């Protein structure tokens, strides 16, 4: 039922996103933008520009109690506990510790047992809740939308604005709904769903939109899967991605350290379940995708939209009519060192990476381990869990031994080879099968060639030494 509350006097049907938006509008300017109240602000090493701006203006942090620091982008993944050898990296990690200490902001720092990638730590600690507005100076903040939070990435000027005022001016995004109906095939997961829609709509297909993911295949996803799906919203150009809270969401949150407790939790759960889009709510754009038609997907080029089922072959630019798109395909193939019409399963890889805020949670590690157990990788690779707590859990489950026995390196948690800021990079010209979210030129290091795929598919690539279909390797194992 529409909710005739003060924030919604007319009781018109609303979407999930509109309900959360309406609850956060401090004021709306005549020319359109609204001043939104921000419930959670996450900062990391890259936030130094914003802290510098505060210093310049002599401003304090308005709500340190709603601001949390996480060391992730630059942290070393090896030799933790000792001093950081690289001076520049040590400075970045130290600056975050100084800035958060100066302003009284709680920090999950390098040596905190709860440290990890900001978008893994937020949900894990119960900082991420349904119905919240959340921002972070990182585009994959869309991840937190998995809980029905309105979460988006911002640049340094806006980070400074939120630090100083706990608000942000925003224009209301348009509404888009992507429904995945039906059942996924075995061996296919949230990463494949995400790459499939981005391949279809394009890397700027959802530009200016708040995406809601819905449909039976989304409801069937675990929280881990939902986080992966929402994580990649930005790769399709979306401002953010959201999923309506349900029993899965509430079950995940109960007992998390920073989540509400006792009666407050019960009250919260009631509010959260009421956030779902009203049955007759309108969307500006809607798409329906048949879940059972999705095959394991890999990328071949330098944009996440350059994605195809593993059974496919690289495109032929001469057969693309649009000149801009043909030029992109030609250039992408050249950078990737691939020729047109090459079967994807014939592409040999040099290394693999399992990690990043997209695919480094416990389920992701289990999915990769299910394929790697008792097998040997033909190429070297790195496995970096999403948080220090995920690392501990994986070790308790014996997953670390499976990775190590397969020949992969098991390291500490951080952004690591997703962005290479900490020095974990792919060498120039090398080809990496990666569970990350960006296959941009040079993303994993200058000249590095990245193929994006799910953890199961990366594990399969490790075993075969080439891009490979994970499904046959899963037979008898799931």
């Amino acid at each position, binding site marked *: 039922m529409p909710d005739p509350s003060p924030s919604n006097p007319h009781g018109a049907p609303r979407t999930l996103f509109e309900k959360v938006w309406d*609850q956060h509008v*401090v004021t709306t300017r005549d*020319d*359109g*933008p609204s001043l939104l*109240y921000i*419930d959670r602000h996450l900062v990391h090493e*890259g936030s130094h*520009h914003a802290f*510098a701006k505060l210093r310049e203006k002599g*401003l304090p942090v308005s709500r340190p*109690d*709603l601001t949390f620091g996480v060391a992730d982008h630059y942290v070393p993944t090896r030799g933790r506990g000792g001093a950081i050898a690289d001076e520049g*990296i040590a*400075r*970045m990690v130290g600056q975050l510790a100084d800035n958060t200490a100066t302003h009284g902001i709680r920090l999950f720092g390098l040596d905190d047992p709860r440290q990890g990638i900001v978008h893994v730590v937020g949900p894990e600690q119960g900082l991420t809740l349904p*119905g919240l507005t959340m921002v972070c*100076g*990182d*585009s994959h903040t869309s991840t937190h939308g998995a809980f029905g939070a309105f979460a*988006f*990435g*911002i*640049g*340094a*000027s*806006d980070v*400074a*604005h939120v630090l*100083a*005022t706990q*608000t942000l*001016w925003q*224009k209301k995004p348009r509404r888009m709904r992507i429904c995945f109906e039906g059942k996924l095939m075995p061996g296919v997961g949230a990463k494949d769903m995400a790459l499939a829609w981005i391949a279809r709509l*394009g*890397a*700027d297909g959802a*530009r200016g939109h708040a995406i809601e993911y819905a449909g039976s295949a989304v409801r069937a996803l675990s929280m881990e899967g939902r986080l992966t799906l929402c994580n990649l919203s*930005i790769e399709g*150009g979306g401002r953010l991605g959201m999923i309506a809270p349900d029993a899965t969401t509430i079950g995940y949150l109960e007992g998390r*350290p*920073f*989540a*509400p407790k006792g009666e407050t*939790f019960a*009250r919260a759960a009631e509010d959260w379940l009421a956030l779902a889009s009203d049955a007759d709510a309108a969307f500006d754009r809607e798409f329906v995708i048949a879940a059972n038609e999705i095959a394991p997907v890999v990328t071949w080029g*330098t*944009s996440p939209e350059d994605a195809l089922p593993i059974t496919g072959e690289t495109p032929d630019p001469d057969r693309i009519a649009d000149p*801009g*798109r043909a*030029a*992109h395909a030609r250039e992408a193939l050249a950078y990737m060192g691939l020729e047109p019409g090459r079967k994807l399963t014939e592409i040999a890889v040099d290394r693999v990476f399992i990690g990043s805020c997209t695919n480094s949670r416990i389920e992701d590690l289990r999915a990769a381990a299910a394929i790697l157990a008792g097998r040997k990788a033909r190429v070297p690779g790195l496995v970096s869990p999403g948080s220090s707590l995920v690392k501990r859990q994986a070790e308790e489950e014996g997953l670390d031994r499976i990775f190590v026995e397969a020949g992969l390196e098991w390291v500490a948690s951080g952004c690591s080879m997703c962005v290479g800021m900490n020095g974990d990079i792919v060498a*120039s010209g090398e080809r990496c099968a990666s569970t990350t979210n*960006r296959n*941009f*030129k*040079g*993303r994993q290091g*200058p*000249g590095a060639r990245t193929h994006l795929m799910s953890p199961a598919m990366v594990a399969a690539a490790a075993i075969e030494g080439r891009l490979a279909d994970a499904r046959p390797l899963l037979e008898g194992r799931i």
Partner: protein
Amino acid sequence: MEPFRRLSALACPLPLASVDTDQLIPARFMKTPRAEGYGRFLLYDLRYGSDGRPSGALPLDEPARAGAQILVARRNFGAGSSREAAVYALVDYGIRCVIAPSFGDIFAANAANNGLLPAVVSEEDAERLLFALEAGLEELVVDLEAERIEGAGEPIAIMIDPVMRTKLLNGWDDLDMTLSRADEIAAFAEADATRRPWARPDA
């Protein structure tokens, strides 16, 4: 921030789609304090070989384009990360306007916060501008007040969000405007604490 009204300047073609923020400034340069200037990092890996020598791969480094303040690119410019450093690299290099058929949302917001105009044109018009520049055209006029680009035949319409336009025309900084509303924000926070008692972190 310097207002953006009308810019008559050298323009440079960048005939690439999806020039993402990782290309605009590779991650390894982002440890640098802004005071040292970010212009030299702009599109670094496209412009310099692994030996650090200019590769001459982009028109940006042709002598005739030196001092360009306008870039023309293909769709999805500035896709990717929220790093405002991508905008710093453009601005510090001297670029004041990028013309493309579409921009990453976060990039566009960051651009407007730094006085850089992300001017959206149709794909057709972008191709026309690229063609004209590659055929030897040097200067363009970007008129934000009139919302059009002149200098390449028929004037070309710019599409821009009206709020972003006002902000750029006036050189406004959001932060100063918002600080004057501190009481309003405090009142909202207080009422909200009763409406949503569960929204505060509990630990």
